[in-house]
């Protein structure tokens, strides 16, 4: 919101800040009325003055140019060459002297034009950056000032541009500061200066308003006060310069004298007004009530809307003529022909205006003020102020009596505030007397209360401070006036045991640390993603639950997304991470390791009678029956490419094994031994679908303690081709809750055997259809407690091996805790293994 300091001067003395506004800005900011910017519009017009054309000649060498001798009040005449033609000898004009810099960084210098020296420039409105001039052509002509314009005066002062404009950021609770008078009051209480309230003077001789326009308020709940006054026989026309100037400095366009007055009063007193043309009101009647469903309405700026019904509208006998407090109708507003006006000054309740304004996306200065709360007591003053100014500028006969529907005037209740509470809440001692003084300065009615314990006051806030109704509200006001810098620093003592951190946070921290130790860097993506991108990546999310990732097939939609790329909540972290891979790859990061720990989202229709699932939110505390949402924490890891350093080049292996190894060491660090991988092939054999984004031959589900908890796999080549991504990309997603079940797991220490361990290798010819880890079960079974570890140490295909098979070498480490293993025992174990494997898989030993 913009405030003009010169305008402010009408209500409170701020003249001392015109030259140096910064201290006032700081004072306001320190009091919570933030001054975001300070503009000095007059600065653009240094060396621009009012001049008087004493002589106008033709340029000796150019027909279209004139040569003027101009008095600029400095003694002597300035010779100026001018290209325009609308100026005459004797005119008062705007002269930019050498040294002036006009808008657009246009520097004025002494120059020679067609051989004749020119010491300045006569300015047009467009050159001055002013909006006046009805047409583009008029804007190009020289500005001709009224004859009484004082020669030599700075143009900025002449046009009252030697002003300071504050750009204020007013918090929603301080609607009372959205006007010049309001800010004057604030400055008054901050610096103990008297505030002058306008006292309108006008003659009211016309017939009473109610005889000319019948006013009826049908919904006094949404409209607690409605006042109006008729002015007959006005002459609508352009506003005088002072009015135009004031509005333009605040960024408002001048429309005509009547509309400008309503805007002026709004900026002055904070009360929005509306002027109806009585001749255009059917009846003529004004009804304040709710709209009917389907009614059509066209706003002043020609936006057509269909009303939903229930909005507060102003209507005449036939149709809505204004959206109450938001915008007037095209059908009833003031035009150049209007003669009889009905000026509306009302108090609409904020919620109603805000709802209508947001519903139709109509944001006006009026709606802004009403929806933040206007002062019902200002209605009358604003109405009369408007009548005064309209009569002054447009003539007309003001109705002797105005209408004012205010059935239940707002009464502010007294609030009891104990001074002890003020001291306690602020943390420094507060004197009762000082507190009472400050409250009085705010405009409160202050009465001492007799209490047994401490000094206290009954405070009644001024009506315009609707935000003050609890003791703490007054305490804040005291702190504000006293200065927040008065608050000392103290350290609250810790007298109770701190509670543990939330388990989910600790889980995430543990996982993050373990994954980073594997060389994976943390990524953070948005919680929402494009539905199309997500669907194209995931393809068949309905299969994911079988792979250990609970969730819905359809993502939660955002009703009002910023754009289509952020229109659904994510179902998986992988589509986002895939974007990150592409970004990295396209910026020449050809290999990398990323992980993300984050939430995925699912909507659930609640089943009646069932308790809400863990992690779900209900719409409002105890009530049920709405949609419920479940958020699950996921760990996703992605790996693409291999580090091509000196050493890694010598051995290279599919990236998916890298990722798998990282997950396995993570599991071991979590002391989770009971896991194995179930290949996509095996999943299919069990009737489960394979996620479409995974390579069906290079993916596996992680089975932890008998249950699937996620997967690892290479991306499907089709996806990579679609993005022209020439890298080996592998991904994994794991359910955090499943990984962290029972964490931290207790460490079970094994005793160490003093006897030597023996390694034995066995090589089997295994069909491709049998995963290598299938044989572990038999090996474990056959070796019993002697087996310390088993791993695949070699794999070989080709040679004389039958087609569709490979030779796999298993290395067993065997050890007995009671004795040195005898060759006999080893032989026995070995033949048992071979026998069991043969029996189970029809596999021969090599």
């Amino acid at each position, binding site marked *: 919101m913009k405030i003009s300091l010169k305008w402010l001067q009408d209500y409170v003395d701020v003249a001392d800040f015109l030259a140096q506004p910064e201290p006032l800005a700081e004072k306001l900011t320190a*009091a*919570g009325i*933030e001054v975001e910017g300070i503009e000095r519009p007059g600065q653009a017009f240094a060396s621009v003055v009012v001049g008087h054309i004493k002589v106008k000649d033709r340029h000796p060498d150019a027909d279209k140019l004139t040569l003027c001798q101009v008095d600029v009040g400095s003694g002597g005449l300035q010779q100026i060459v001018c290209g325009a033609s609308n100026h005459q000898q004797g005119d008062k004009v705007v002269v930019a002297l050498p040294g002036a810099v006009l808008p657009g960084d246009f520097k004025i210098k002494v120059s020679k034009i067609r051989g004749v020296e020119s010491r300045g420039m006569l300015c047009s409105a467009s050159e001055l950056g002013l909006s006046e001039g009805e047409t583009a052509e008029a804007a190009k002509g020289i500005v001709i000032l009224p004859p009484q314009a004082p020669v030599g005066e700075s143009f900025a002062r002449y046009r009252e541009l030697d002003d300071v404009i504050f750009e204020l950021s007013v918090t*929603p*609770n301080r609607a009372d500061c959205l006007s010049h008078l309001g800010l004057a009051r604030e400055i008054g209480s901050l610096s103990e200066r008297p505030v002058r309230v306008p006292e309108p003077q006008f003659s009211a001789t016309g017939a009473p308003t109610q005889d000319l326009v019948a006013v009826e308020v049908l919904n006094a709940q949404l409209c607690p006060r409605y006042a109006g006054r008729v002015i007959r026989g006005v002459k609508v026309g352009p506003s005088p310069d002072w009015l135009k100037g004031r509005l333009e400095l605040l960024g408002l366009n001048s429309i005509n004298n009547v509309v400008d007055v309503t805007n002026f009063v709004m900026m002055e007193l904070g009360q929005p007004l509306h002027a109806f043309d009585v001749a255009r009101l059917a009846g003529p009647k004004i009804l304040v009530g709710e709209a009917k469903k389907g009614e059509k309405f066209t706003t002043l700026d020609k936006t057509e809307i269909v009303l939903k019904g229930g909005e507060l509208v102003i209507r005449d006998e036939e149709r809505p003529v204004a959206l109450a407090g938001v915008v007037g109708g095209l059908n009833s507003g003031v035009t150049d022909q209007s003669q009889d006006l009905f000026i509306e000054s009302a108090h609409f309740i*904020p*919620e109603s205006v*805000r*709802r209508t304004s947001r519903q139709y996306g109509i944001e006006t200065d009026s709606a802004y003020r009403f929806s933040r*709360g206007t002062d019902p007591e200002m209605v009358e003053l604003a109405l009369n102020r408007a009548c005064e100014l309209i009569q002054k500028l447009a003539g007309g006969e003001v109705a002797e009596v105005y209408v004012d529907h205010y059935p239940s005037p707002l009464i502010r209740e007294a609030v009891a505030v104990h001074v002890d509470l003020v001291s306690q*809440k*602020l*943390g*420094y001692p507060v004197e009762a007397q000082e507190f009472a003084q400050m409250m009085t300065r705010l405009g409160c009615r202050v009465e001492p209360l007799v209490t047994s314990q401490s000094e206290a006051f009954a405070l009644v806030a001024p009506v315009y401070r609707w935000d003050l109704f*609890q003791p*703490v509200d007054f305490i*804040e006001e005291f702190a*504000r006036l006293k200065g927040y810098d008065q608050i*000392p*620093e*103290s*350290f609250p003592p*810790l*007298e*109770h045991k701190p*509670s543990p*951190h*939330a388990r989910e946070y600790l889980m995430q921290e543990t996982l993050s640390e373990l*994954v*980073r*130790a594997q*060389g994976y*860097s*943390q*990524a*953070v*993506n948005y919680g*929402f993603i494009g539905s199309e991108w997500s669907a194209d990546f995931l393809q068949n999310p309905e299969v994911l639950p079988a792979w250990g990732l609970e969730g819905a097939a359809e993502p939660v939609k*955002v*009703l009002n997304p910023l754009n289509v790329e*952020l229109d659904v*909540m994510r179902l998986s972290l992988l589509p986002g991470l895939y974007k*990150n891979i592409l*970004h*990295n790859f396209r*910026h020449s*990061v050809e290999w990398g390791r*990323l992980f993300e720990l984050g*939430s995925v*989202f699912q*909507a659930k229709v609640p089943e009646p009678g069932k308790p809400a699932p863990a992690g*779900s939110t*209900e*719409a*409002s*505390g105890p009530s049920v029956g*709405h*949609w419920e*949402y479940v*958020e699950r924490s996921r760990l996703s890891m992605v790996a693409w490419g291999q580090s091509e350093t000196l050493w890694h080049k010598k051995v290279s292996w599919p990236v998916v094994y890298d990722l798998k190894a990282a997950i396995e060491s993570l599991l071991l660090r979590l002391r989770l031994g009971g896991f194995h991988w179930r290949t996509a092939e095996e999943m299919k054999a069990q009737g489960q679908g394979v996620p479409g984004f995974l390579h069906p031959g290079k993916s596996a589900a992680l089975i932890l303690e008998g249950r699937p908890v996620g997967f690892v796999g290479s991306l499907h080549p089709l996806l990579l081709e679609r993005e022209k991504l020439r890298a080996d990309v592998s991904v994994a997603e794991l359910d955090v809750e499943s990984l962290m079940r029972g964490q931290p797991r207790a460490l079970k220490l094994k005793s160490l055997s003093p006897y030597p361990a023996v390694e034995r290798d066995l090589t089997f010819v295994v069909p491709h259809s049998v995963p290598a880890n299938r044989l572990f079960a038999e090996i474990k079974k056959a070796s019993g407690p002697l087996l310390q570890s088993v791993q695949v140490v070699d794999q070989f295909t080709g040679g004389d091996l039958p087609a569709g098979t490979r030779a796999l070498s298993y290395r067993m480490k065997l050890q007995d805790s009671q004795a040195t293993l005898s060759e006999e025992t080893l032989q026995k174990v070995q033949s048992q293994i071979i026998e069991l494997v043969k029996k189970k898989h029809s596999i021969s030993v090599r």
Partner: protein
Amino acid sequence: MRLRAIFQPDQREFVTMALTEHLARLKEIEAQAQADFTNAPGTKELYDQKVRYFGKQGSFSELMRVMGKLGPEDKPTFGKEVNETKQRLEALYNQQESQLKSQEMATRLAQEALDLSLPGPERSQGSRHPISLVINEVISILSRIGYSVRLGPQIEGDWFNFEALNIPPDHPSRDLQDTFYVDDHHVLRTHTSPVQIHTLLNEIPPLRVLAPGSVFRCDSDVSHSPNFHQIEGMLVDRKVSMADLKGTLSYFVKELFGSSLKVRFRPSFFPFTEPSAEFDCSCPICQGKGCRMCKHSGWVEIGGCGLINPKVLMQAGLDPLEWQGLAFGFGIERMAIIKYGVQDIRLFNENDLRFLRQFE
């Protein structure tokens, strides 16, 4: 095999030889051994020569056998000569051996030399995301004064996100936060403050909690992302003052940015706190002298804070005459910008490894 030629295994010939001849041969052997030891190119060859002269089948073993055959008058003379010769040769051997050893070590070292300007195999740790770095640092600072972490849902009920925090429907305070909706009653939480409500409803004061997390606002420009992070602190106890709040934040800011910094409060408005304040700290970049970060004001805005509005305590079922509270919160990305000088907010979500790796 010149030695074999000298000591032909014809015992009779030996025996017939005079002592002088034996001594002469001893000289010859010594000369030969000296030559052989000196000429040995390496320790292995040298050792072979040692065996040849001093081994079981070596020359000196033969000499000892010769001595056995000598008469008693010759034995001492010959024995002495043999021993002295042996000692000389052994000394020569040791000298040669150590010389050859050091030569060989020098050669080996030269051969084994590696170019240690070459890198080792990569074995890097992954890095924490700067957002997580900041969150963690804040948690570690405030944990020390008894705050513990609480988390809450990101899709939040309207009541938790707004009403319970004294932001009624159609209230102008809703203008402060542009909200994403997923249905008529659920929003993407616009702040971490609803975690306060969950905590107040589920736990018994006194309380000190911290709620970090992802929040959403539907405005987006070069300096605002629609999904960013906040952290919020709340303390509820019998008596809590603005001075407690200022003292807590002053401790916090000094721990996070440096001990010389100051905290400033400016009045502000949040529906869920009263009194409310914005808290600034003297600019950690320029120490308050004025720079681009602080727009030459010497102060940077950190976040919002205040005493918990009694209405909020009541909504959460606490009696405001019995309990009071303070709350504060701020944006994590902004802290990361101040702390690490991140220039462009897009960097936070592109997850470019060239950016992330710098936080290792």
